[in-house]
């Protein structure tokens, strides 16, 4: 029961912080600073980001309470303030929670003051999101590795999550952009989506490279690559293998989007009727989102297991 609660909290926390950061970064790299499209996109996403800040603060705190309970061997309902204080003062996880809370509050302030100070708010959101995401490196296996190796492990873990966040945020951004409307998507909207998709190509490649490199480093530090064959026998190894297969599926879908569906959408957006091309790429991105969601659920689960 507690296990399921912990996994649910981890999933919600990873998803909320990754979407928050990824959506904040999206307008910053797809278009020039201060471009009209930039403001248009940021304004479209900020509604979701307000919710994500709230959700992040909520599940982050719930996570700390549940962890405090399991560490003290008591039920979550009987966690005393004194125990929480001990966690904040004596453990890295507690300190990470404190930093994450401050980062999420900064992000929330940015999201709510968005209409008045757009440019600063957009940058603040992205920076605070990255900071909040980085604190999650202390909540998994990377938090337990010691010394210099531990520092390398946490940096690698943080980069892994930031790259994944940028990819996930882009997926969410495209689904928001291409959300079906009752009277069909306006051609302007489709043209904007096509241009952003085109710009994302390069950034997406960088994300994949960073995810692969840091994933290898993490695997070495947690499992030891020479043990990779043996670890297939454990639940941890099997879940990791499923994660890798889903990552492969995401790569295949991303390749189809980049080299087939995006050019088709760009070509169609010049013509009168582009709704079919938009529907095709929407389906493909939705499949990518489903794979990404499953990966997050797997990570939320096997991060709690012994490798």
């Amino acid at each position: 029961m507690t296990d399921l609660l912990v996994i649910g909290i981890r999933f919600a926390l990873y998803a909320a912080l990754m979407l928050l950061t990824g959506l904040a970064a999206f307008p910053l790299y797809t278009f020039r600073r201060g471009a009209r499209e930039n403001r248009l996109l940021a304004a479209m996403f900020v509604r979701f980001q307000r919710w994500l800040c709230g959700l992040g603060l909520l599940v982050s705190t719930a996570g700390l309470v549940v962890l405090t309970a399991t560490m003290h061997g008591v039920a979550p309902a009987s966690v005393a303030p004194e125990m929480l204080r001990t966690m904040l003062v004596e453990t890295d996880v507690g300190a990470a929670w404190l930093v994450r809370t401050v980062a999420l509050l900064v992000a929330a302030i940015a999201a709510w003051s968005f209409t008045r100070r757009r440019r600063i708010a957009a940058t603040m959101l992205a920076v605070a999101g990255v900071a909040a995401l980085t604190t999650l490196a202390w909540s998994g296996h990377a938090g337990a590795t010691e010394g210099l190796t531990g520092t390398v492990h946490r940096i690698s873990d943080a980069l892994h999550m930031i790259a994944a966040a940028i990819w996930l945020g882009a997926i969410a951004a495209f689904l928001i952009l291409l959300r079906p409307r009752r009277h069909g998507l306006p051609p302007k909207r489709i043209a904007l989506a096509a241009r952003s998709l085109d710009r994302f190509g390069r950034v997406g490649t960088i994300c994949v490279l960073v995810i692969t490199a840091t994933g290898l480093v993490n695997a070495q530090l947690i499992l030891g690559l020479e043990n990779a064959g043996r670890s297939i026998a454990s639940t941890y190894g099997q879940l990791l293998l499923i994660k890798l297969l889903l990552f492969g599926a995401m790569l295949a879908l991303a390749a189809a989007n980049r080299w087939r569906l995006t050019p088709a959408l760009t070509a169609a957006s010049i013509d009168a009727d582009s709704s079919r091309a938009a529907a095709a790429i929407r389906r493909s991105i939705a499949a990518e989102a489903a794979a990404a969601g499953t990966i997050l659920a797997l990570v939320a689960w096997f991060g709690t297991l012994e490798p």
Partner: protein
Amino acid sequence: MNKWLPLHLAAMLVLASAPGTALAHAKLVGSTPAANSAVAKVTTVTLKFSEKLIASTVKAELVMTGMPGMKDHPPMKIPFTSAMGKDGKSMALQLKRALVPGTYKVKWSAAGADTHRMGSEFSFTVK
């Protein structure tokens, strides 16, 4: 792709240099009296751990499980005051008076910095 070369080189360097590290769960590495030993005049039970424990998470219990000449002795809790060692890696159970002859069991559980709650138990005999 050439500009990604430094990144890949760095990754390879880390892969080659870092050993697959074991995770540091707290475990009992020693005690006085030692597990399964037979000793006399016990006024303190000391437990030594592999990792630093978080003091507020520590739970310990000492029970007398057998007494010479008494069959089916029900487990009896022995009161003590506990104190963590300065380095957080040891704990002393200070007894009010020396233990009477019999068999005893110590149970402990606690969480270390890796946030995992661990625990074990061991027995010893007082002559």
